[in-house]
């Protein structure tokens, strides 16, 4: 395998790498030793340092936060030819165990959300709660074709071209607008920290992918599902499949957000994660009407409160159509 690149920004104080299946996994753990643990799982082209703002906010809220690079990402080992999604689940479980906490919260976005779902199906007993963000249990025809196009883009044009495709697809005009003049600098960290072959191996780990839908019922913990209002890559119905399949779940639509809303709105994301974990730990999750398949709308700022989706309307539509 290929050792993780040293050109990723220095995370500051990472924990010693974990050895998982003969591979080295880079991770770090921040926050008080006796605090409830949240494990954050990267999307496909991400690396652990992109959680810095969330980590700091959540530690400030009194949590212990674990972040990592999955295999094929950042500082973790990058197998030359084959990475199975089961290997990533094993990596996540190794981190859960390394935190020393009997139960943790796991939150993953996009590809990391899928790994978190698979982990929750296999290790439900280790979870206080799950947060599935911008993710899916089924490769819909649109998602399959988009994934194939992105893979082709990576193979033909390299990481820079993949970034060119992903940035406008996954981020809003409000975020992109002020950065248009510095886009090459914005892209550089991802460009330097990722490798074509490793990303390709991650994307090809979907070969033979089978829907997780029949197994979602095995996720017994409270589950928060976050979906950007304008998520083009993984639209609402994919998140609704999770809501319908996971017994104690709640779908929360993040207003004005796109697929990569965790990057755009770290304060709001940290607030939603923190509120969810506190509600679960305090026994308020169901007592306050959360979970149980509810659909809600996130506030636009961390200071405001989450509201139920307006009664009588279809949350799967982009126009106000009666349910």
């Amino acid at each position, binding site marked *: 395998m290929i050792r993780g690149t040293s050109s990723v920004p220095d995370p500051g104080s990472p924990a010693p790498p974990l050895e998982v299946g003969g591979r080295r996994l880079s991770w770090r753990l921040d926050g008080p030793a006796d605090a409830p643990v949240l494990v954050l799982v990267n999307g496909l082209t991400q690396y652990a340092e992109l959680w810095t703002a969330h980590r700091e906010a959540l530690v400030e809220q009194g949590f212990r936060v674990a972040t990592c690079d999955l295999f094929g990402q950042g500082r973790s080992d990058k197998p030359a*030819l*084959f990475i199975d999604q089961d290997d990533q689940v094993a990596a996540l479980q190794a981190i859960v165990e390394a935190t020393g906490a009997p139960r943790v919260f796991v939150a993953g976005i996009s590809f990391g959300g899928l790994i978190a779902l698979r982990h929750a199906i296999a290790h439900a007993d280790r979870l206080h709660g799950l947060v599935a963000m911008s993710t899916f249990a089924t490769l819909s025809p649109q998602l399959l074709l988009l994934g194939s196009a992105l893979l082709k883009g990576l193979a*033909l044009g390299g990481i820079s071209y993949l970034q060119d495709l992903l940035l406008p697809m996954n981020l809003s005009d409000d975020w992109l607008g002020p950065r248009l003049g510095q886009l090459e600098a914005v892209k550089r960290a991802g460009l330097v920290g990722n490798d074509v072959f490793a990303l390709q191996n991650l994307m090809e780990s979907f070969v033979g992918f089978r829907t997780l839908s029949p197994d979602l019922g095995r996720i017994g913990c409270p589950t928060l599902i976050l979906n950007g209002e304008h998520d083009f890559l993984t639209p609402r119905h994919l998140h609704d499949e999770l809501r319908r399949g996971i017994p104690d779940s709640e779908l929360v639509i993040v207003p004005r957000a796109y697929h990569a809303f965790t990057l755009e709105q770290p304060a709001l994301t940290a607030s939603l994660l923190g509120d969810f974990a506190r509600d679960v730990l305090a026994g308020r999750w169901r007592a306050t009407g959360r979970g149980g398949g509810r659909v809600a709308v996130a506030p636009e700022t961390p200071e405001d409160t989450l509201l139920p989706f307006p009664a009588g309307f279809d949350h799967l539509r982009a126009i106000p159509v009666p349910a």
Partner: protein
Amino acid sequence: MTMLNLVASGRVLPWQQARLGAFLVSAYGALARLGAGQAAWLGGPAGVALQAQGFAAAGLVAALLRATAWRPDPWVAMRLPICEATWLPRPGGADALALGLAIGTVVRPMPLLPHEARQDDAFAAALLLAEAEAGRLLQPNLRLLKAMAASTPRAELEGAAERRRDAVAALWAERLAALDDA
């Protein structure tokens, strides 16, 4: 992390250009030979892909030969035989593909280029061309090695890729260290 140094005009120092350029010409030259050599005895789409890879790698060699500010460097002359020895073929069906994959995955010069480098400089343009071609250059090796998993254990293929990767990584690390020399 090793970075290339820029002169006031925003161009990479000439001695760094020559030292890095010599290694890249050797490495992409090896990839060109590997691609063309394997294409000569492989038929079908694989042969076509490897031949195209050989020509793409030769294109990078040509770009670097043209763009680099060459100057005599005894260090390069002394180390070149070690490079060339690394590219020699070994027995085993997967080895040549593994070597090509190792060159394509380990040798990645673009991250060495500071963001402030002049984008209209020929040497910078050659490094950016190598980055742009990286995805395409990898495809034949990656796909053919993965296809071999139908008849060869994955661990054996990963092992072959890792052995070649370690050798190329050691060479690359040595070259990067030599770029830090005053």
